[in-house]
């Protein structure tokens, strides 16, 4: 008797003409298109990045050509739109070239920390036990330092230089990313679908690759993007202290430091590199806020 009820096919419903709701990414793009602030910041940042990449094509002058006659020319001087620095070099050109190092010094540590911190966090969250203990307690120790102090301490102990700066910046960004990756992994690991995957014979590796990673990458990436604004300020801060690149090369932080000596002669020239750091940082912040809102699933 039960056989017959089971065999009875379910009544098929006639297809209803319902327009499919827009997909997740369509929604995200639509939200972004309606957000003028985020779009504006994206444009400004794209321009800054493009200018830095194509610096030799864009820059009006030679960044290293000095001129004793044209030292500290004010903004708006013919031929030097933003004036010149203390050695007569064109400031606009120096800022465009400086962007190469400053942006490199912000993107690279965040990207490296994203890979290392994400990996460590997922390992800690997935393996658990003493591995988790070892990784997370080490993270706690790094949390005991204000991050900028730690960056300065490591950079200061290792000595000035681009690579040392990169290492110290990467080191300060790893702990927060590890923490987030760990907490999300721990949550995901306990969810039923991971159990189901394991029951259906999936290997640990493919569980991590397919089920854990796809859930962990989102939050970690969003957090990493918010670190870019911190990175640009701290990286420039290290250079400002003289712990970054060495002259005649310069990034925005070092330019701010050297031009500071001329503060009584050409005060507004001296403020210029910092203004560029400020604008870049602000755009990173607003862009990150906008992205977070656009990507929000609950909205």
């Amino acid at each position: 008797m039960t056989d017959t009820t089971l065999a009875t096919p379910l009544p098929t419903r006639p297809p209803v003409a319902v327009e499919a709701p827009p997909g997740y990414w369509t929604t995200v793009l639509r939200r972004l298109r309606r957000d003028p602030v985020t779009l504006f910041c994206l444009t400004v940042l794209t321009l800054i990045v493009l200018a830095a990449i194509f610096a030799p094509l864009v820059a009006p002058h030679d960044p290293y050509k000095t001129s004793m006659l044209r030292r500290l020319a004010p903004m708006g001087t013919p031929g030097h739109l933003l004036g010149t620095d203390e050695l007569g070099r064109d400031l606009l050109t120096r800022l465009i070239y400086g962007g190469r190092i400053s942006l490199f010094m912000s993107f690279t540590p965040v990207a490296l920390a994203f890979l290392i911190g994400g990996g460590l966090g997922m390992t800690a969250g997935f393996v658990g036990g003493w591995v988790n203990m070892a990784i997370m307690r080490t993270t706690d120790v790094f949390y005991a330092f204000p991050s900028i102090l730690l960056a300065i301490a490591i950079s200061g102990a290792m000595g000035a230089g681009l690579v040392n700066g990169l290492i110290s910046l990467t080191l300060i960004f790893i702990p927060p990313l590890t923490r987030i990756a760990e907490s999300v992994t721990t949550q995901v690991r306990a969810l039923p679908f991971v159990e189901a995957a394991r029951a259906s014979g999936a290997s640990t590796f493919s569980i991590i690759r397919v089920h854990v990673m796809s859930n962990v990458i989102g939050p970690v990436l969003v957090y990493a993007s918010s670190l870019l604004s911190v990175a640009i300020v701290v990286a420039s801060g290290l250079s400002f202290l003289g712990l970054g690149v060495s002259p005649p090369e310069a990034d925005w932080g070092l330019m701010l430091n050297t031009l500071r000596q001329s503060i009584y002669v050409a005060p507004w020239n001296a403020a210029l590199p910092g203004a560029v750091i400020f604008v870049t940082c602000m755009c990173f912040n607003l862009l990150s806020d906008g992205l977070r809102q656009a990507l929000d699933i609950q909205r």
Partner: protein
Amino acid sequence: MLGYILRRTLYTVPIVLGVTMLCFALVYLGPSDPLSAILPEDAPKELIDRIKKEYGLDKPLPVQYAVWLGKAVTGDLGTSIATRRLVAEEIPPALFNSLLLAVLASALAFAVGTLLGAIAGYFHGRPIDRVVTAIAVTGVSVPHYWLAIVLVIIFSVEWDILPSMGMGPDGSTDFRLTGENLRHLILPTVALSVIPMAIVARTVREAVRETMSQEFVQALWAKGLTGRRVLGHVAKNAAPTILAVMGLQLGYLLGGSILIETVFAWPGTGLLLNNSIFSRDIPMLQGVILVLALFFVALNLLVDIMQAALDPRIKR
């Protein structure tokens, strides 16, 4: 409560140990031998060996760490290579100067940030909320060392009404309550307070907004309380969060003030750190970092305990 305090304090012990290990490791991060700063390059081998023995550098690392830690516990942080003075004697006055700046900046940040945040949270979604949010985003984005330079340009270079360097007249480094000393405090305090101000404003706005949307607030309105009295109840509920953020900010200020102290030549721990980096004075570097990190750990502990005391819901 007592149990919580005990557990939380015990939890900091391994962290403190980790911090000391990291500080100890700083010596070995350098490109060269830690002795290279005091020895000439062509020093004879016997001299190097003798000095190594004198500093205990010939022993294995764990032993060196244990010896260093043992001394540090008793307050002996070694001798500065640059000034030949005891590190433990140089740090306290500098720490006082830095704390003076950090506490004043925190107070300013707290007052202005709470006011702005409370207004924005209370008038959530209105134009004034947008203005405060814009101020807060600007505040967290400003590189504070650049803001310091801009303040110097405006108030010292262009208008010439405030001093741009040092702590008092003629480069004195001890604080006295005179008008001149107070004038020297203004620019560094303002420059340092902007970031925490923005962070506090953001936090308070969120806390107030969240509390305002809770049912008990609707009950208060329904009871017929005035807006001011409602805000009083809201403040009491939002206080623990705000306190936690503020406590951490005080620690960040102390750690992050190195750049501000460099701009204003303020004789605090930041300037000490800066000098020690460029004279490769590793004992001093180690000492300053250790003291600042321990201060930060203690502050974290204090904030957690106070938060638990203020908010009976926290029982971990």
